[in-house]
């Protein structure tokens, strides 16, 4: 199945792009997606450990690592929000 991943704020700089489409096996969870992203963009994993919390929104809602993904889902990786 195809999952669209979008990067926001500083994470866009770190990934070096705004979005990517990934192919994952059926039954993959948000956790699996994050592992795949971190393997593709090790700097993202590094910054998440060091400086900036990396938060995943699944179809626009705060996601949990156990959430199962479905074909066509959109995952947004964001740092803590900074509205105001």
């Amino acid at each position: 199945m195809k999952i669209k991943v979008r990067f926001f704020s500083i994470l866009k700089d770190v990934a070096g792009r705004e979005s990517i489409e990934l192919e994952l096996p059926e039954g993959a969870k948000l956790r699996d997606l994050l592992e795949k992203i971190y393997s593709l963009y090790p700097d993202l994993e590094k910054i998440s450990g060091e400086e900036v919390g990396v938060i995943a929104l699944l179809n626009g809602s705060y996601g949990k690592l156990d959430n199962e993904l479905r074909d066509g889902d959109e995952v947004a990786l964001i740092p803590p929000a900074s509205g105001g």
Partner: protein
Amino acid sequence: MADGRIIEKPLDLNELVASIIEDTAEKGAGALVLFVGYVKGRVDDSEVSELDYEAYEPHASRMLKEIAEKYERREGVLNVRIYHRVGNLKPGETTLYVAVSAKSRHQAFQVAKEALEEVKHRVPIFKLEKREDGEYWVIGNGRRIKRRKAPGSPEQS
């Protein structure tokens, strides 16, 4: 009625307040607290030239409306409106409006404060601060990280 969304232009405050009062005075409200956020001209002793706001739409608008609806259900509250601007905003430009009308002033203050915190911490809105000493990503509640020139980044190559 509760309302919330991402906007691009500043609001007319006379219209906003008149509309809230019209919705609420007959129901016994007499207190309105309005928070207006605006771009600071100086941060950390450095001059700010611009704040670039980006929102993850349509989810940011949906969450603003949900937050307005949630706080409008609070005891004594009659109306909540939340609007957040996006785009390149200069010092002195308004960025965020949170308006709460309630039966008592204490409720209006309390709910405006709480709704504002939820907007700031939950809604996927992000800012890049452009200052005389460089560009800073603002992360969460005021933490600033200087922007590095990441190779391959589409905006920076």
